[in-house]
């Protein structure tokens, strides 16, 4: 969180580290409070104070806080892992996403197998309406409820709308569920948010 430590008596973490006077208007003061010395120490170790100054000067004031926080994140990752830094985290996360995506594909395939099964739909009152055999009453006499058609699965809509890191599901996988689902399809809000976040994340393939 940005703070104006130059208005207080104590210098900012950057000027403390660099052992210099923290002047009013210090470019580091809003983003490196004296309570977080480690933040600037890491940033300085990896990027250097002059490089950070140049980077911040090239940005608009409202962009600087986010830039400093992302630089601090990268610096900390690089200090923890000098060889791979953030790239190690990206690689790990991409593998996790791929693994989960494979699991999701397998689960979708299972779901399709159940949904495309030829079993007849259950009657409206399930067990109570089925007669014991031998009394000459046929099932056709029962009124079997026709359940509503559901054009596409939640997962297919999400995948087709998301783009980004997900593969497209074939359009031929349209099926109708033989049973009513126990909840309404309220996932569209989350799907849109997920699609928006997932889109455009295709950079940095390792």
């Amino acid at each position, binding site marked *: 969180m940005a703070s104006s430590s130059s208005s207080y008596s104590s210098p900012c973490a950057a000027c403390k580290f660099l052992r210099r006077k923290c002047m009013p208007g210090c470019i580091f003061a809003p983003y490196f409070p004296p309570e977080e010395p480690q933040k600037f120490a890491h940033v300085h170790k990896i990027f250097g104070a002059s490089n950070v100054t140049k980077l911040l000067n090239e940005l608009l004031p409202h962009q600087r806080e986010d830039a400093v926080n992302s630089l601090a994140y990268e610096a900390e990752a690089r200090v923890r892992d000098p060889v*791979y830094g953030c790239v190690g985290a990206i690689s790990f996360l991409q593998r996790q996403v791929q693994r989960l995506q494979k699991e999701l594909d397998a*689960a979708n395939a299972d779901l399709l197998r159940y949904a495309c099964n030829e079993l007849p739909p259950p009657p409206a009152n399930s067990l109570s309406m089925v007669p014991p055999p031998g009394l000459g009453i046929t099932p056709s006499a029962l009124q079997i409820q026709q359940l509503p058609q559901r054009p596409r699965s939640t997962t297919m809509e999400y995948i087709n709308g998301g783009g980004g890191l997900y593969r497209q599901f074939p359009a031929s996988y349209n099926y109708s569920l033989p049973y009513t689902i126990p909840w309404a399809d309220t996932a569209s809000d989350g799907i849109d948010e997920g699609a928006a976040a997932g889109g455009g994340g295709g950079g940095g393939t390792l």
Partner: protein
Amino acid sequence: MISGRCAACKSQRRKCPSDCIFSPYFPPNDPQRFACVHRIYGCSNVGKMLQQMPVQMRAQAVDTLYMEARWRIEDPVYGCVKLISQLHQNLNDTESELAKVKALIAFHKLQISQVNELHQPDLDASQSNVEQFQFNYSTQNHYPWFIN
């Protein structure tokens, strides 16, 4: 053995010594590589980082430094952190989706088992009911109209 100065020493306008720490990783035919890394990290910081790690890891380290430098140049505000954030979001979304699909599968399995029970009810109980029914009527030699 790279002849001539490496990209780092060319950029810094200095002689390239035989034991130059940069020369294995910044060949002269790729000046852009050093320029990116130098712009974000600075020559001396990169040199210090390379000195502090084993020789066999330095090539990989320079590659990852170059990647992060390029991301930072393309996006000066977020750099590669934006991609990390998106991947976290993707991971959460995929986990939620997987949980939903697994719940649907469990629901289907339950429905199928219930349907199977409908078509294969307790045969012993029903058979004894039929036998009892038939016995009651057979002893009286009286068949109701709905029994063929």
